[in-house]
């Protein structure tokens, strides 16, 4: 991702970590599939619409987990398989909780 997009993404995450969904209105939407939500981030000058897929938990109620990266173009998610991949990745994490990592995107 270009630096500007990474920065915008990281800033939203940093505020979400501290304020939660109540103080970051419009950031998380969905569900787009069972247990799967999308984060809506307008990229630099609106050129790219970042739509990382995520789930609440899956271990702690106070965490969200980013499952797979995606973008949106013309109301279509790219890659088309992102929802399925997100569900698969969620299943992997539930099976092995040690695979969850807290890390920055920058």
């Amino acid at each position: 991702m270009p630096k500007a997009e990474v920065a915008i993404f990281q800033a939203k995450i940093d505020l979400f970590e501290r304020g939660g969904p109540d103080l970051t209105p419009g950031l998380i939407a969905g569900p787009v599939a069972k247990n799967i939500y999308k984060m809506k981030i307008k990229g630099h000058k609106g050129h790219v619409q970042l739509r990382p897929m995520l789930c609440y938990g899956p271990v702690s109620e106070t965490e969200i987990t980013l499952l797979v990266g995606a973008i949106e173009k013309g109301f279509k998610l790219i890659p088309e398989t992102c929802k399925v991949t997100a569900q698969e990745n969620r299943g992997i994490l539930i099976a092995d909780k040690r695979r969850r990592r807290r890390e920055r995107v920058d």
Partner: protein
Amino acid sequence: MSELIEQLRSSFANEEYRNSYAESLMNSYVAAQIKTLREESDLTQEGLAKKIGTKQAGISRLENVNYSTWKVETLRKLARAFKVRLKITFEEFGTLPEEIEGFSRNSLLRVPFDKDPVFSPAATGQLLGRAEDALDAASGIGPRLPLGSLSLKVSTGALAESA
């Protein structure tokens, strides 16, 4: 705090990164504050829209962390609706980590003018009392009755009699 500064230090070396990060933060902060102040004022999005002469969908857009095309005139109208003042300042990047770390509902709340302790009647009385004490101390006068307990009557009849 220091952990966040450490994390941002290397990334902020890149000018495009730090500018985009700060702008993203500002957009999110303003959106969150509008939502918080609206809720604190017991206003629905529709109620606030009526107050500033727009539609509910317009307020919904302003309360979205991705909104970025702010107009000072709209912010001014919102400030009036919330009975607070609008303050626009330029800030150093160094103050940014503290803003992030302190980000909470409380940090976004502002007291409306009619509940502002600086200008509420009770607070004004206290300030007046302090001013009187200062005047007495300066002029060497002993304690006197508070201004609130004095009443002055002006009678045109009495003036006419004495004249």
